[in-house]
């Protein structure tokens, strides 16, 4: 297809907002570590990844604006009410500056992003597929980065192993939030705009997570928890989300009309 049918613009906007919002919030969480990374190279790497995530969010907001008739990128990023954001609970969770939690959260989110971008890169709408393909190529470097840490710390000292296992156990219940269906997703699948894979996303994700964890001597539960109530994809966020968003939007809200 060369253009996107009008009827699919709203569902695709929801899907791309969830993708962009995940990246935007995760990038913001990662940026907390700038200057505090465990070693200098990692400080640079994690800051660089934060920059990637926020840049990815920005081009997706831009895409929603120019291709789907959405609001301007800055207004999408900073100008919405909390219930209008579509990010998953997992990216909203704080890490209390515990590196094991930060890197396990990253590990879960990067693998999920790679699966989701893979579906978008296979879109029947070339304009979307081309952009998603570029994002995916960059995302693969994030996956590799997270995998390296999982294996290094999982097989490191008994203390590093235990802390990684505790972080996995603590964050696992929220992994289901990534897979909560986005409104209108079912409408995008038949046209191939967001094609279904051969298996459910959670199956693909779980396999790669379990493989890497196994290599690291860590264990993950046998299945991904189901998101029972409406969550982030439906605008229902964690208790800490409003505070996090207020911090992120503080400067914008001083003067929303200011040009930067």
């Amino acid at each position, binding site marked *: 297809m060369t253009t996107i049918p009008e009827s699919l613009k709203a569902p695709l906007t929801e899907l791309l907002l969830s993708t962009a919002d995940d990246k935007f919030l995760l990038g913001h969480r990662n940026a907390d570590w700038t200057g505090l990374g465990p070693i200098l*190279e990692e400080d*640079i790497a994690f800051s*660089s990844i934060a*920059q990637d995530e926020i*840049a990815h969010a920005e081009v997706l907001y831009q895409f929603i604006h120019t291709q789907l008739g959405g609001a301007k990128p800055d207004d999408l990023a900073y100008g919405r009410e909390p219930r209008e954001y579509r990010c998953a609970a997992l990216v909203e969770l704080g890490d209390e500056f515990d590196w094991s939690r930060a890197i396990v959260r990253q590990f879960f989110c990067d693998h999920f992003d790679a699966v989701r971008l893979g579906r978008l890169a296979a879109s029947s709408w070339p304009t979307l597929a081309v952009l998603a393909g570029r994002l995916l*190529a*960059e995302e693969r*470097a994030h996956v590799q*980065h997270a995998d390296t840490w999982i294996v290094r710390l999982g097989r490191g000292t008994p203390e590093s192993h235990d802390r990684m296992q505790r972080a996995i156990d603590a964050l696992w219940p929220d992994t289901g939030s990534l897979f909560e269906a986005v409104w209108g997703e079912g409408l995008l699948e038949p046209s191939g705009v967001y094609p279904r894979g051969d298996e459910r996303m959670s199956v693909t994700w779980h396999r790669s997570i379990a493989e890497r964890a196994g290599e690291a001597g860590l264990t993950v539960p046998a299945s991904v928890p189901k998101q029972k109530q409406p969550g982030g994809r439906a605008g229902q966020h964690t208790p800490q989300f409003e505070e996090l968003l207020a911090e992120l939007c503080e400067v914008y809200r001083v003067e929303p009309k200011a040009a930067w």
Partner: protein
Amino acid sequence: MVTEAEILDVLRTIPDPELPIGIVDLGIVHNIDVADRGSPNPGVPGVRMPEQTGVPVECDVSIEILPTFVGCPALRVIEEQVASKVGQLAGVGSVRIGIVYDPPWSVERISPAGRQALAELGVTVPLPSGERLVSLGVQRRDAATPAACPFCGSTQTELESAFGPTRCKMIYYCSACGNPFEHLRRLT
């Protein structure tokens, strides 16, 4: 009327803000299009009036730029530079800059002169696909072989961090001469 070659000459004078080479050598200029206006049309908003420049507006220029990385923060600076410098050419009305991702930019697009300039400043570039690095009689593919050190030429180098000072660079360390250096990242 201004020609594509003249525009390219102007673009050659624009440096990349994060790398010590020009944007043309970096290979991010994809397409230049000059549209003849036919007759001067001073009524279009944003177009300079003939009396301001002394030359009637003859054409509109559109230029496609391929970002090295999605949302590269240097892009805005590059866009401003391109719009300003090309816009100063006699007879040019508007300059439209499109950011496109297809074809994707890759390290293969860097010119030989660009590679040389980068190497002189200690930044190495993955070899073009298919080319092999010859070292100690063993031919190894680029992917499996770390970059040769730009300072001493040794291939006894290792990846220190996949993320460097800018989004397009990685940090390598040369075990032979003890220097760190930067290597451009290849996206596949």
